[in-house]
């Protein structure tokens, strides 16, 4: 491997690209400004709990789902 190595920061397979893009997009939904502007609505409740709590819980579950999908696909 004396030639210049290919970067490991960019996924090389289709499944790798899907998993990376999916994780990054979902993760951004759990970050400001989305959390502080969109999810922080104290008057909006879903299933007996605030939107901020339920919304983030759904995003966290989806992020774990991406990791499990990647593992299942052998990424």
């Amino acid at each position, binding site marked *: *491997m*004396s030639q*210049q*190595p*290919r*970067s*490991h*920061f960019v996924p*090389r397979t289709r499944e790798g690209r899907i998993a990376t893009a999916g*994780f990054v997009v979902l*993760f951004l939904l*759990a*970050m*400001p*400004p989305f*959390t*502080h502007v969109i999810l*922080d609505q*104290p008057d909006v*409740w879903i*299933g*007996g*709990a*605030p939107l*901020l*709590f339920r919304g*983030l*819980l759904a*995003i*966290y579950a989806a*992020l*774990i789902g991406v*990791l*499990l999908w*990647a*593992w299942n696909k052998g990424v």
Partner: protein
Amino acid sequence: MEPWVVATSLIFAYLLATIVLGVIANQRMSVDMEDFLLYGRKAGFVVLYLTVVATFHSAFAFLGSGGFFYTHGIGFWAAGTWTVLVGAVTYVLGPRIWALGKANGYITPADMLADFYESEAVRVAVAIVSVVFTILYIQVQAQGLGYIINIASGDRISFELGTLILLVVAAAYLMAGGLRAVYWTDVIQGVWMYIAVWVGAMYLAYDLFGGPLQLWAEVRAQRPDLLSLPGPEGFFTPGMWLGMTITLSFGIIFQPHMMIRYYTAVDAKTLKLLGATTPIYLMTLYVPAALVGLGGAVAMPGLDVPDRIFPELLFAHAPPILTGVILAGATAAAMSTLDSILHANMSVLTRDVYQRYMAPDREQSHYVWVGRGIVAALLVVGYFLSVRTFDFLVVLVTLSGSGALQLMPAILGVCFPTQRTLTRAGVLAGLGVGLGVLYVTLVVMPHPLGLHGGIWALLFNTAVALGVSAVTDPPSQATRDRIHGEVERQIYPETSS
């Protein structure tokens, strides 16, 4: 029987069980460093899973997190971001570190970094960062243990004595059985603490409010300020949200007690499954913490030490036996982290300092005994650091994570091959600047512009590391081929032959 008798008895029964496990682990142990320090590199999924989650979640999961919800409200649900990120980082980074450790016989994080950057100065710098910032963590856990036993005994066992007893027990089973004893006790601790937090929180939610949904409704009615960002005291600004996410994920993973766990896996596939599944445990443990903290703010307002909300509620409202079981779970949470940190510091000091510079060619059994002596010394240091009292455990955890976070550019340089790599001069300069900026942005002028000090330090660290690396000599081509080649073969075996 009085509640404090039941609670204290159960904690001591639990401590006895950990010592028995330490003795059994000692009988299974072979006297060599890989077995004593790395579980022989054969940890399977279940053991590794429970030791990772039990080590990640500490006294802070029981005390600090409830206290944070109590004081700052729903913003602490940001905790889910860093727990999920821990999983993703483990998934991506774990197999790389495992492969390099197995191929090159690494035992500590400094082994890996010194080998790649061809620098003893890097080894020493990493060892110092590893020890200094994790000793802070020993303090955090030991203080948590002191709080727990002090509360459980109804002030009959002092904070100082409680801290000492639990430090001695953790050190004893570590000295007896090495990492095997730590892993076995972590299995019990991981299961116990998870069940304890959930059972305790649900009991309180039903007993005090009629259920979790009623609890949410009551918080909405009485303390709506706890249900919006940035919280009653304005803590959860966007900058703090981002900063805590980064420092409590990468910053924890780059601490030696977590990185060493990657070396111990039986194979890389186990680590990937670990990465995909650990967030389930890590994240869901904060759901009951939210119920305890938010419900506690309504049911028991005005606590002087918010971190005590969970045990105070239990003593006030739960049956003694349940309180005892749950506080023993809290003890498990703190001890499972404490023993891992003691072990990691022992490994770093034995391997990177004693074996490297003081006695390089001694028998394996000699190093095992030196490691035991170092644990005894760490116990003394940890105790004296711990008898100072702090109200908010989470602040100290954040400080610890921010220090280890400064290893990030160097570690990524090893584990992620790129066309231009960092150099030893770049890594050392970046680390030095990062630690200096960390001191300024956490102590002198905390969190400038609302952005967490750890992130400021990382930004300066990375910029300096890249800048200096652009004008200094990289590691030799042979070393880069050997180490980056191993990473390439591990991650892309089909194209690297």
